[in-house]
């Protein structure tokens, strides 16, 4: 992409390097994250292990937002969002959100130097998968940390069934729990979205290693997790539009391609209008976090709410505009529809994020 012209310092477009990452990731997922492979993973653990190994190993991009001295690539949120968008475009069955969008940023922001150096390189290399558990979610009693042990439960842990370690946000701290630790119970849950299945965790006095700065850990995990979900939603919504446009150009009824009917064209146009706004939202949020802008909280709430709503809308339209075939298990529309729902429900619904925006916009200040 063109470098900024002289005197033009406002450059809200990808750099050459970012374009390259996007093209590489797009080609990688298109070739490897096929419907067949995703469906095979859905029937098992929800992780396409070979794809994860290739993504973290050969492609070497899993550590894109992890510093170089922790085994990563040392880039930022824009690059992480690019990868999440491309993974989302193919509903890739990967622990991307769990390991790279939640656990890694929690450790990076809240861990000691020693913890970061010990834990992050193996997440970046794909050798280990981590997930993030909010132990007090959904109004449950949650979990408490006491004398290096954790007691309680976490109800919905994304890709919890395949994680090797967990970052657990307890009521009084954040701690790392190893999969093999005695006293940890992991129950995989039958999940609507089988590309990102949940597990339930029980902690019965399980050994837990506290992170140095729990507040920073939770804040980074949420912020990055929201961005990753928004970017995944953007890629997914774009795929819903692209596939539906292609289908409506082929499908003939009443002697015409159904894509020639205004009732159909206008709905596809509305999808594009929403998607282009979602794209602005995701990359504005990513830039704002990278630049430490004082707008970053506003931006990431906006992105999570808008992109997830857009994905739900587009995936619903995908089913509707495909007609009966779109309602079958055989067609991929339900993969998008279910992932869209999961993205919206996980880590705060769009309404919740909009309420955060309302507060940030100053609605509670005195008149």
């Amino acid at each position, binding site marked *: 992409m063109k470098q900024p012209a002289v005197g033009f310092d*406002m450059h*809200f477009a990808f750099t050459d390097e970012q374009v390259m990452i996007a093209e590489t990731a797009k080609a990688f997922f298109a070739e490897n994250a096929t419907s067949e492979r995703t469906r095979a993973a859905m029937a098992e653990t929800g992780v396409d292990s070979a794809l994860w190994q290739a993504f973290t190993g050969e492609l070497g991009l899993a550590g894109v937002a992890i510093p170089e001295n922790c085994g990563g690539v040392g880039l930022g949120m824009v690059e992480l969002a690019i990868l999440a968008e491309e993974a989302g475009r193919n509903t890739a069955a990967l622990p991307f959100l769990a390991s790279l969008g939640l656990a890694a940023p929690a450790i990076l922001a809240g861990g000691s130097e020693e913890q970061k150096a010990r834990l992050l390189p193996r997440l970046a290399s794909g050798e280990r998968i981590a997930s993030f558990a909010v132990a007090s979610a959904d109004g449950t009693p949650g979990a408490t940390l006491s004398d290096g042990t954790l007691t309680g439960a976490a109800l919905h842990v994304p890709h919890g069934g395949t994680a090797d370690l967990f970052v657990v946000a307890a009521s009084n701290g954040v701690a790392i729990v190893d999969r093999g630790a005695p006293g940890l119970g992991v129950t995989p849950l039958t999940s609507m979205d089988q590309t990102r299945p949940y597990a339930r965790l029980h902690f019965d006095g399980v050994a837990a290693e506290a992170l140095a700065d729990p507040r920073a850990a939770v804040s980074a995990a949420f912020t990055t997790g929201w961005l990753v979900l928004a970017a995944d939603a953007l890629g997914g919504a774009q795929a819903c539009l692209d596939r539906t*446009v292609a289908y409506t150009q082929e499908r003939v009824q009443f002697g015409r*391609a159904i*894509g020639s009917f205004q009732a159909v064209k206008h709905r596809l146009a509305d999808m*594009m209008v929403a998607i282009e706004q979602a794209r602005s939202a995701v990359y504005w949020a990513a830039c704002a976090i990278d630049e430490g802008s004082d707008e970053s909280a506003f931006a990431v709430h906006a992105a999570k709410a808008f992109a997830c709503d857009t994905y739900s809308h587009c995936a619903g339209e995908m089913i509707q505009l495909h007609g009966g075939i779109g309602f079958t298990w055989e067609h991929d529309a339900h993969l998008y529809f279910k992932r869209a729902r999961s993205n919206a429900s996980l880590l705060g619904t769009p309404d919740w994020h909009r309420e955060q*925006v309302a507060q940030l916009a100053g609605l509670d200040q005195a008149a």
Partner: protein
Amino acid sequence: MKLGFSPEEEAFRAEAASWLKAELEGPFADVRGRTSLTEMPERRRDWEKRLGEAGWSCVGWPKAYGGRDATLAQQVIFAEEYARWGAPPRLNHIGIELAGPTILAFGTEAQKARLLPKIAKGEEIWCQGYSEPNAGSDLANVRTKAWRDGDDWVIEGQKVWTSLAQFSDWIFVIARTEEGSKGPKGLSFLLVPVDQSGVTVRPIHQITGEAEFNETFFDGARTAAANILGEPGDGWKVAMGLLGFERGVSTLAQQMGFRNELDAVIAAARANGEAKNPLIRQRIAKAEIGLKLMRYGALRMLTDAEGGTLNPSALTYKIQWATWRRDLGELAMDVLGVSGETVEGSEYAFPVLPNLFLYSRADTIYGGTNEIQRNIIAERALGLPREPRGDLK
């Protein structure tokens, strides 16, 4: 990919801000904060001239034609400061945003030298003669005719919805110059002086009570043979080029106006307690998000334009802002409740927010209705089949 401006650009911002502040707190305090396009037309002309004298009228144009040679970023900054200081909508916005850029792109050297400095100095106001009673969304169906008579073009026909024609010195007209031609063929883009006996301007009252636009009748109106942009028959090409300019820097200035409107809605909601209503909070949050996404969408669009490409996403901008503003008008009335329904005094002229509710119904119609925008997006960006033409006359 990055946000924000350089220190040099911020210095430019300070210069623009200090000039605007001095003028709008000084000699032009009376036009500050005006939102209507038709109020105090004489003072608005004075303001156009003052901007022109100081070189702040058409900052992105070449200096040779009265501009400032400003970079795109500087144009954005000036637009932002202009709105931030409460400067009023530009009486000559059609000259500055549409006629000028079209003359720059398609005009001869002589046309540029004659016409552009007059726009930049605020001495000649322009309006747009596109729509006709039977050429609205189907713009290519224009029936206004023109033909050569000696050294002149002679024009016969009628235009409608000509905003600000009552204040204008010039109108640009799409007219059929090839007899018997149909659709986009055989049209020419003529520049016609308004002040002549062959041109009659009749105001149309809008649902707001104001008369911003007009019917314009051409009955043997004349303009010099040289007053044509492009060749005879190139009218459609020039007109379509012009539509591209409607998506330029002015969008960011427009957004600063939207910011002021949204702030007014929030202030009203805080004042009457509606800011505590969870449903209103959701809608205000949606409006806040939508406004930010317009800003970053426009910055993407401008960055692409600087790189010489028009990304198809630019086609989504019109429906986006128009729908956003119409929704804001409805939100404003839901916040105000019945108190938004009345106004003091006998004149049918509502304050900013109730007026927004009425005025914003035009936004989803003019410049291509939402339905036409959806066709454009579906056909040009998504590659879906074109709408078939009917054959009713």
